[in-house]
């Protein structure tokens, strides 16, 4: 999966969690939580969706690495390279 495809995947997951999420002005280097008004409960859903869709086991201590779209791509790129 390319970095762009990973970012698309994350946005698709968020759209599924919150149908009103607005991605128009989303900045890839700023925290997703602040920009999209997500709370910690919503955030866990991103992790759980990644597990469900791509069988990724993300340990709790790595959750902070999913903070921004760019950091998601950094962290997930090696894990999703064959998908």
């Amino acid at each position, binding site marked *: 999966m390319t970095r762009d495809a990973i970012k698309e995947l994350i946005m698709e997951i968020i759209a599924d969690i919150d149908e*009103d999420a607005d991605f128009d002005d989303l900045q890839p280097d700023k925290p997703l939580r602040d920009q999209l*008004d997500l*709370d910690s*409960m919503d955030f866990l*859903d991103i*992790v*759980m*969706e990644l597990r469900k869709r791509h069988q990724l086991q993300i340990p709790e201590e790595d959750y902070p690495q999913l903070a921004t779209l760019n950091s998601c791509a950094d962290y997930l790129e090696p894990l999703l390279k064959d998908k």
Partner: protein
Amino acid sequence: MKYPLLIIGGGLSGIAAGIRFSRYCPDVLILEKHSRVGGLNSYYYRDKRILETGLHAVTNYAEVKDKHAPLNRLFRQLKLSRKDFKLHPQLSSEIYFENQNSLIFSNDFDILKSEIQSKFRKQFDGFMALVQDIDSYDPFLSRPFISAKEFVHSRVKDTLLTNMLLCPLMYYGSAVENDLDLGQFVIMFRSIFMEGMFRPAGTMREFLQMLTTQYVNFGGKLQRRNEVVKILKNKDTVYGVELKNGETIECSNILSTIGYEETLKLLGEDIPSSTLKRLGFVENIFLTEKIEENQNSTDKTIIFYNTADKFTYKRPDTFIDFQSGVICFPNNFAGRPSQEYKEIRSTHLANYYHWEDLEGSKHEYSAKKMELADQSKEVIEKIIGSFRDKVVFTDSFTPLTIKRFTAKKEGAIYGSPKKIKDGKIGYTNLFLAGTDQGFLGIVGSMLSGVSITNQHILPKI
């Protein structure tokens, strides 16, 4: 098969936890002892009429657009459409302390503020300071018991106003006599006074159906009439349950929603002794023919009343304490279609052991129920006006009824006075949710199931 998660109890916390887990992993099993789910919040039939239990008015009213409101977060977590869920907001409610004072509140918090400003002028600044402290308080941090009564009194500096503010919050969920844990108080104050109350368009039956449908659609399994008699463990790790029918089921995690002591019992552990008393309630349902609209109470949704000089919230030494209580009009919600009958409900504190003494004699038990329902009627008629001539149907539930249908120890609807806020009771893979975790009410118990599953179970699968 070995279930990744087994949930004991099909009440609201158990079903919410089940939906949450099955959304990501369908192999979850809920075991419910009774033939009907819902636990404390359920329904039954009498004379072909459906009667609800638990649901008077749901707390945590929120508009769809208010994304972070607890109600909307809950719906998002369960992947239920909040837009399709129609709410009827309360009209207005009242805290009525006979011969002392009264306060009106509704889903607009400014109404309560202006009531306090006009009726407790000197205490208004203190009340606003209290509101500010409530706004900034984090009730979800684990702390030992802090007295809400002292917290409120140190700010409003008036015993009557303190008691009037605490009365509805205690009746809506304090498991502790004459007080409330501060964390709980903050949650309840926001849920009831700042957010407000509503009821769903349908009955409790439809609400439960919406939840179980979601759960089953996600692949979760639900077994009714299946009672757990033992939790199987090896030191501090559990690995399954034994059922009443002799069968055993293996699992990797257990979420128990049946109460702290009730769970310890299944684990074969000693129950720690406690001097704290559990609180029981009696609730009466009166269905009446339509009453003329000229009554002062017809526009109220709930009246929290007290007729004593000093308000107390404790286990009475008699069957029922009529000095205070809750009067609810389940039809008085905005936009609710007109019902065939008018419903009036009264709730009072009760003593489980007095009722238990009558358990052996069906005749004496029903006679007592009738006698005390009549007394309750007399007491509340003094507040809302006469309606006895119009009553076409009466039913009551006592702490004994609650114990029989929900298996709550001593029929105490709010459970143990001691709460286990983090859900941990000394096992690596067994957690507690529901009443004894400490979030109460319909929205609270569901959030309890969701948050314990999020915290302890989902990250580990």
